[in-house]
């Protein structure tokens, strides 16, 4: 008897190595052919403090966190109450606890989960250089039936440089843990992997966004560190340099967006990454990008807000500032990846769109995608790269008009180095020839032009992920897509019909496309992770939603789980 999905929390205060063990578990599972997802729960501490690696493994692709934890293994129980709410358990769950670390906290014990004791510290102590996290890894691996070969490869890769002693210590720890649980028979053996031979990737959302930038043709990044976006910038630093691009660390987000605009003005596709506080600082320059028609991509890895909020935990509450945060009438692009792997496609697409439409694009990722790592099928190559419409026939009789009022709204750009294209790009309202103008007719013409280039553009099918059929539809976006998708598939697996529409292109809105996607729908469930139901209000402001509309909206840090969406759907049917 095997299970189709297993969800494991490895818990321990800083130094216990819970994150390392979780990472190795995910890597080992990938090696043997399972899919997986690992998210992190950490406090604000720089080092130390409470930490948990939250791992879900399955023979089929994993879309989001499990309904509840099947296994919690704790190296200690310090500060676990701070995130106990993120560890849902049931009486079918198993808590593996080290008797030397005291009682299982009441908040977890109350679930009725089965408690089993494993003397983790004692076992590690018997091994020269032994570490508790390796004992724990060995125990979990044995419980879920993870073949030892998968772990060996991970150990070799992680510790090869540290020498034989370190490898032996780790192996001894894994052996000790696995031996100890040999007779437990918990019934949590994971079904055999599906060996289809397809290439799998092990990637985080932040890495995927960085790779998307490269594949889109980005050659410049200005960076200012901020949780939980920093990994995009740190990943881009060496990889941009290796592909002929450049990254510079700026003094603040005001400077990072400004540098990106400067690089882009000179013709070089540019990106920066930030979180809500940084996006707030950038909004004036994003408006400059709109007015001066200078493309730029800003990845906002959302976290709990407002203000400093909860920097290490996920939320979708920057939707409003991303869509409405610019002063004046400032149409621009807002897109949201629908999964960790999709951070690649959506960022790449954003680079393409920003350059094609000569306007800023905000990519709304979030902590749950950015800082989580997934084992996924290798993403398909997408044909989207940066291609700006450049002016031709410069230096002729007619003086170049940077903001020519074309039918498409897209004006051919001249960039430095092109003789005859000299002009001053301007945040002041301007005439077609780029010279400042406060005339009503010029303002109207340029506002129309900047809107028209977005509304008349054909965004194709990528505007949303759509699946299923029937009269009930879940409409969602961003990282809420994963649990929503899983919930819809559960209904379908039970013989019921349901649709999923996950909107990738937030702005400009696509009313006729959504209307077509919801044709025949009588009930809509909107799913999002905000307190103020921002996405629902956004939909209400721009779309006609058919039939009876319900909303599942909750702020972070608790992730939305498939079970919750599924139960809500069942209550609506």
């Amino acid at each position, binding site marked *: 008897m095997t299970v189709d999905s297993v969800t494991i929390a490895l818990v321990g205060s800083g130094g216990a190595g819970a994150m390392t063990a979780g990472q190795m578990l995910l890597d080992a599972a990938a090696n043997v052919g399972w899919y997986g997802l690992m998210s992190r729960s950490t406090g604000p501490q720089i080092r130390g403090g409470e930490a948990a690696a939250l791992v879900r493994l399955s023979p089929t692709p994993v879309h989001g966190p499990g309904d509840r934890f099947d296994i919690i293994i704790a190296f200690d129980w310090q500060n676990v109450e701070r995130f106990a709410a993120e560890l849902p358990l049931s009486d079918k769950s198993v808590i593996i606890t080290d008797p030397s670390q005291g009682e299982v906290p009441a908040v977890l014990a109350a679930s009725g989960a089965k408690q089993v004791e494993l003397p983790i510290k004692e076992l590690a102590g018997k091994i020269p250089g032994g570490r508790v996290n390796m004992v724990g890894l060995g125990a979990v691996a044995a419980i879920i039936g993870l073949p030892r070969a998968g772990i060996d490869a991970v150990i070799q890769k992680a510790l090869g440089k540290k020498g034989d002693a370190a490898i032996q210590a780790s192996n001894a720890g894994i052996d000790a843990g696995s031996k100890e649980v040999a007779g437990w028979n918990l019934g949590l053996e994971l079904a055999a992997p599906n060996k289809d031979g397809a290439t799998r990737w092990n990637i985080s959302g932040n890495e995927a966004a960085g790779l998307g930038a490269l594949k889109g043709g980005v050659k410049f990044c200005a960076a200012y560190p901020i949780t939980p976006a920093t990994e995009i910038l740190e990943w881009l630093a060496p990889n941009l340099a*290796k592909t002929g691009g450049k990254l510079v660390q700026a003094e603040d987000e005001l400077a990072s967006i400004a540098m990106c605009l400067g690089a882009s003005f*000179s013709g070089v596709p540019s990106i920066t990454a930030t979180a809500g506080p940084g996006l707030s600082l950038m909004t004036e320059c994003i408006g*400059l990008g709109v007015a001066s028609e200078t493309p730029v991509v800003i990845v906002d890895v959302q976290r709990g807000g407002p203000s400093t909020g909860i920097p290490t935990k996920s939320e979708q509450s920057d939707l409003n500032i991303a869509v409405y945060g610019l002063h004046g009438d400032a149409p621009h692009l807002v897109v949201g990846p629908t999964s960790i792997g999709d951070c690649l496609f959506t960022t790449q697409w954003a680079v393409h769109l920003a350059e094609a439409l000569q306007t800023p694009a905000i990519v709304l990722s979030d902590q749950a995608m950015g800082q989580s790592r997934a084992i996924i099928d290798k993403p398909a190559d997408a044909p989207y790269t940066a291609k700006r419409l450049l002016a031709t026939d410069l230096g002729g009789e007619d003086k170049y008009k940077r903001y020519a009022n074309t039918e498409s709204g897209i004006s051919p750009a001249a960039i430095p180095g092109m003789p005859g294209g000299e002009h001053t*790009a*301007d945040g002041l309202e301007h005439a077609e020839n780029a010279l400042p103008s406060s005339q009503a007719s010029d303002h109207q013409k340029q506002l129309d032009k900047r809107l028209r280039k977005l509304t008349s553009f054909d965004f194709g099918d990528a505007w949303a992920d759509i699946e299923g059929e029937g009269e009930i539809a879940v409409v969602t976006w961003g990282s809420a897509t994963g649990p929503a998708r899983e919930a819809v598939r559960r209904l379908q697996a039970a013989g019921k019909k349901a649709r999923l529409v996950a909107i990738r292109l937030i702005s400009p809105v696509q009313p006729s496309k959504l209307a077509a996607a919801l044709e025949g729908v009588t009930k809509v469930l909107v799913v999002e992770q905000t307190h103020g139901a921002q996405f629902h209000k956004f939909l209400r402001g721009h779309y006609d939603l058919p039939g009876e509309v319900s909303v599942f909206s909750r702020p972070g840090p608790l992730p939305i789980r498939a079970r919750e969406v599924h139960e809500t759907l069942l209550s609506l049917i």
Partner: protein
Amino acid sequence: MDTHLTEDVVGPMPHDYKSDVKPIWCPGCGDYSVLAGITRAMANMGLKRENTVVVSGIGCSSRIPAYTSVYGYHTVHGRSLPVAAGVKLARPELDVLIFGGDGDGFSIGGGHFLHACRRNVDMTYIVMDNQVYGMTKGQASPTTESDWCESKLTPEGPGVNPIQPVALALACGANFVARGFSNDPNEVARLIVAGVKHPGFSVIHILSPCVTFRPEQRNWKSTVHPYGREPTDDPNEAMRAVLEDDGFGLGIFLAGNRRPFQPASKDSHTIAQIEERFAV
């Protein structure tokens, strides 16, 4: 048809770098002469118009890009320096100049000034200092005297000491620091040429009177004086001399030896090679 300057036998003239846009400035504004100095400097160096980028923020002097015939970017208040750094870092072959005033550069853009000096990107910053916000009709700026009482916003005077831009530039690590006066466009042009030709970040502080809100600045022509020393390449020596200066000494204070900043870029890998590392 536009003639492009590279082919000119006689070389470009200052008017080749002027656009036909009429400045918004008041009659008698110092910025007219600075603009004349800028176009003379450009002609003197024979800059290619298509390869020259001028960047500005917001304020009277920040209007200059549209008055030139090179590539320009008139950005938002205080952000000219990072925008310009983006241009130069992304396209090092371009000549990049920044124009702005004391409010744009030292108040709202003050943080960027500090970092532009220490970052030392090879570009030239020309700050027209009139010790007042002119575009918003006469408020105290970071270089206004603490007891200047002519602003409705601070009728008792700003009450805080002004900063000294040249000392600040030296303290923050600018590689070339000079001061000029708008009444002498030839000297302004000479300083700009020296600044553009000098590697790294060059700061050219230009006293440029506001005849509308600071009419007393007309007297600057009798206040300014030659700085009286040869340029040094030693920032310590330059700083000692600047601290003794009354803020009206003209000339080149520092022509330093710091290496300009440029991020590494190798172009050694294909994206396919990079993404291979994600494969399980």
